[in-house]
């Protein structure tokens, strides 16, 4: 579609007016008073055009000046160019024209005229931006977005501005505050004003600001408040007014109280998330080691195979079905399960079944198998870690409280683990196969006498355990590395979870994993990551000393032997 230049200008004016209702009112007033719309917008358009051209500047300092000016002009027409600059999609041709490249990277249009251009025929270069340019850009984009129709966009913009308050911002915010109806956005506006108000000369204003901060503020204000109650080297207060000092220290304690609850809630989530990951890693082992009694050192490699299956599915999607790329995880679930289960069954049939009842030999043999699997993966995929991308719905997170973000990937893993545990539980408790599995694990001879083919059951159970480990690998690929040594990282933790929870009980594994997750995450803020890990190990040792059978023990005569 080729757009005409004038048509685009008209459209831009239209969107310009549509997006900026407050501004329209303001403009309307002017119109009535004296000046016509035409000359005013013309002046503004000229100013806008020259500032926009500045975005193509080679020097970062001049680039920043141009960005700042665009922010001050506040015309939404500049928004696409600014956003494109931030995302590195704005390019400059040799004659200085600004070209916005679209998301696909194949097409582009001129930022000023809106005309489609053939980007292959031009010699384009990217303006070189760094973090200092990005900071200025965020402020400029925030300033423009304050006048958006969407309250969500306004909220994001206000938050962005709160990060970097300045005195010229106050004027803008005060103006926007009168027209703002959304309470959340107003709250942020108040905070922006309060932050500036702290430095005011008017005592009344400072006290008011402190009140606002105590009411709505978050951790970000602590430094400002602490400066008010700090002493200098001679032991004199930096702040002369005792009333301000008192209000400030009150505000600090109210902030700290709020922060304490936020911290505990955050720790709870972190613990839950770590627990769910440990559970996914250990669930397969709970079946092969817990139910069958095979000391399965190759369990970690089943996780790794699941992760590599995900990687292969991802690559197939990238190659053949790029339009559905974001959904590759859905078919990856059965594939990861099947691949790991089949490899597990092959191992069980060829090696492990000959070693039942000989734990030491099993340990050595499965350890050997794990080395073989690691080396084969190295030979096939290389020693380097491979890249498994997060689909868009698993990147980023949701901010539940001030400053606490729950990443989507972790939330999805928690939901996923609930499903997997429920499925495994249902399979073991509600199906005839599950009944046979439980019968064989409790008393092999008796089960055999009752006509159960114990060999077949062993095979299925080991396959199930390996398959579930494969699912664990799929989940791990979304939060960490995928490399040949992936399994080695989780094998110790998995054994710890199963032994702590009690061998032979799925519910024990769930309790063990969540318990370890919570202990870890509540200890870490206090003790640090290294010491925290050591303390967790000590706690596990003590617990096992006290309860060698684990938290949830099998009851019955078999367990007593």
């Amino acid at each position, binding site marked *: 579609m080729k757009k005409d230049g004038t048509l685009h200008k008209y459209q831009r004016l239209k969107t310009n007016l549509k997006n900026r209702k407050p501004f329209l009112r303001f403009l309307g007033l002017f119109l009535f008073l004296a000046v016509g719309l035409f000359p005013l917008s013309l002046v503004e358009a000229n100013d806008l055009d020259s500032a926009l051209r500045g975005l193509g500047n080679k020097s970062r300092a001049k680039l920043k000046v141009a960005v700042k000016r665009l922010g001050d002009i506040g015309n939404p027409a500049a928004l696409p160019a600014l956003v494109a600059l931030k995302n590195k999609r704005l390019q400059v041709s040799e004659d200085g024209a600004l070209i916005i490249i679209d998301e696909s990277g194949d097409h582009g249009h001129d930022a000023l005229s809106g005309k489609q251009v053939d980007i292959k025929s031009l010699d384009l270069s990217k303006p070189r931006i760094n973090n200092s340019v990005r900071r200025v850009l965020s402020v400029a984009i925030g300033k423009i977005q304050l006048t958006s129709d969407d309250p969500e966009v306004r909220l994001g913009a206000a938050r962005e501005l709160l990060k970097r308050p300045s005195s010229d911002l106050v004027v803008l915010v005060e103006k926007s505050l009168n027209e703002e109806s959304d309470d959340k956005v107003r709250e942020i506006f108040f905070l922006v004003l309060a932050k500036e108000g702290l430095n005011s000369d008017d005592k009344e204003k400072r006290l008011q600001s402190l009140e606002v901060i105590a009411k709505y503020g978050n951790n970000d204000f602590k430094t*400002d408040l602490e400066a008010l109650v700090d002493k200098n080297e001679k032991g004199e207060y930096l702040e002369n007014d005792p009333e301000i000092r008192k209000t400030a220290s009150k505000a600090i304690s109210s902030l700290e109280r709020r922060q304490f609850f936020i911290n505990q809630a955050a720790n709870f989530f972190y613990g839950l998330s770590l627990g769910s990951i440990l559970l996914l890693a250990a669930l397969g082992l709970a079946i092969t080691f817990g139910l069958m009694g095979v000391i399965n050192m190759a369990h970690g490699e089943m996780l790794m195979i699941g992760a590599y299956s995900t990687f292969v599915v991802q690559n197939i999607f990238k190659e053949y079905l790029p339009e559905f790329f974001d959904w590759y995880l859905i078919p990856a679930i059965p594939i990861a399960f099947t691949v790991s289960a089949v490899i597990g069954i092959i191992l069980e049939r060829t090696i492990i079944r000959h070693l039942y009842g000989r734990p030491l030999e099993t340990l050595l043999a499965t350890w050997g198998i794990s080395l073989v699997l690691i080396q084969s993966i190295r030979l096939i995929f290389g020693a380097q870690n491979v890249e498994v991308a997060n689909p868009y719905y698993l990147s980023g997170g949701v901010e539940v409280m001030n400053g606490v973000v729950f990443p989507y990937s972790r939330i999805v893993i928690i939901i996923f683990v609930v499903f997997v545990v429920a499925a495994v539980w249902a399979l073991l408790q509600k199906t005839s196969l599950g009944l046979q599995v439980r019968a064989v694990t409790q008393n092999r001879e008796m089960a055999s006498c009752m006509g159960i083919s114990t060999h077949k059951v062993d095979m299925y159970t080991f396959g199930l355990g390996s398959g579930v480990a494969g699912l664990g690998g799929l989940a791990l690929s979304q*939060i960490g590395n995928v490399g040949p040594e992936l399994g080695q990282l989780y094998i110790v933790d998995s054994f710890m979870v199963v032994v702590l929870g009690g061998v032979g009980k799925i519910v024990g594994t769930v309790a063990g994993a969540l318990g370890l997750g919570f202990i870890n995450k509540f200890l870490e803020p206090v003790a640090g990551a290294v010491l925290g890990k050591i303390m967790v190990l000590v706690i596990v040792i003590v617990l096992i000393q006290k309860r060698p059978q684990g938290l949830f023990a099998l009851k019955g005569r078999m367990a007593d032997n």
Partner: protein
Amino acid sequence: MRCLKSKQCSSFITLRFLILSFVLFIVSSTAQAAETIKVGILHSLSGTMAISETSLKDVALMAIEEINAKGGLLGKKLEPVVVDPASNWPLFAEKARELIQKHKVSVTFGCWTSVSRKSVLPVFEELNGLLFYPVQYEGEESSYNVFYTGAAPNQQAIPAVEYLMSEDGGGAKRWVLLGTDYVYPRTTNKILNYFLKSKGVAKKDIMETYTPFGHSDYQTIVANIKKFAAGKPTAVVSTINGDSNVPFYKELGNQGLKAEDIPVVAFSVGEEELRGMDTKPLVGHLAAWNYFMSAKTPENKSFIKKWKAYVKKHKLPGGSKRVTNDPMEATYIGIKMWAQAVQQAGTTNIDAVRQAIGGQTVQSPSGFKITMDAANHHLHKPVVIGEIQEDGQFEVVWKTKGPIRAQAWSPFIPESAKKVADWTYPWVCGNCEKAKF
């Protein structure tokens, strides 16, 4: 013939044959030793460090092939002797001994982690070997038998921190020193602590955190960084090693910490490490090195071209996706310098070569004339700070005007500030407070 029974006879013949072949073998191998110059390559090709060190072995072999293609040195061909210490630190020492005593190598290129270097150091000093160490490290060391072609802290860590303090870098006032728990991060952070103190940063504005090797759950640490950063511009200096970087950066991205708000500068993340990562959440974060693959110099163009051709010719795994990085450049420079010194000395005698290496210059791929310091055995190197891009490459945001001299002993740590590393007369010492002569 004394042997009458055929069985005895045949065994006697076998024995004679064995002895004969053994003698022949010795003769042939000594003959060969006279014709070639042996070069030891001591890099882990298996175990956890294989990821990083394999490329260094490959680039060393490439450089040797290049020298041989031009006729070798002193009329002899170079013969690489590759051994695999398997990421096992004591094995490094054993393999180093094997290279020097059994293979009689003229020089060794090797090691990556500081702990492996510390492990081979006594061997090289005892047997008077020659080691080129190609990786950025924590300093506080200078050996008569080692040439350091990687960066010392003042060629990487200190300039990076200075950049983050500057207005362009974000004017950081608070600092998170985050690392894996071992000697390199601990020593580097010790130096940085003293340096920040000298710049007037208060103790409460520095947060030092360590994680175990292979740590994969960064939720709490990232949340803590966020809390710590509240209210003042903050920067993170990461000495996290290898694998843990992926979960760390993923967590940063997921918790919404943007590079423009809290930039992370990494000292152990290069092009090779980024190959295994989804780089989208990393864009804008920084790394400090002495060389980036994206350097636009004719020397670098030909270096990359040679590397790509070498990878293709030898069908190395990874193929066209293989990249070059800073330690590879350092290895390449090291071999070139050693070759020049051998030419100049006219012999491979270690003492003569050592004398000749001091002051050698090489036009490096990073585009600078690089000199080996005769006094402290370190290279003069330029410092570049780059921003991670979506394609896994770096875009340079800051660099020094020219190469800067390494400080083997950091002037910021009080106890090492007095020490001098100078192997020329009258000092002749790596860690002395007074000249020997």
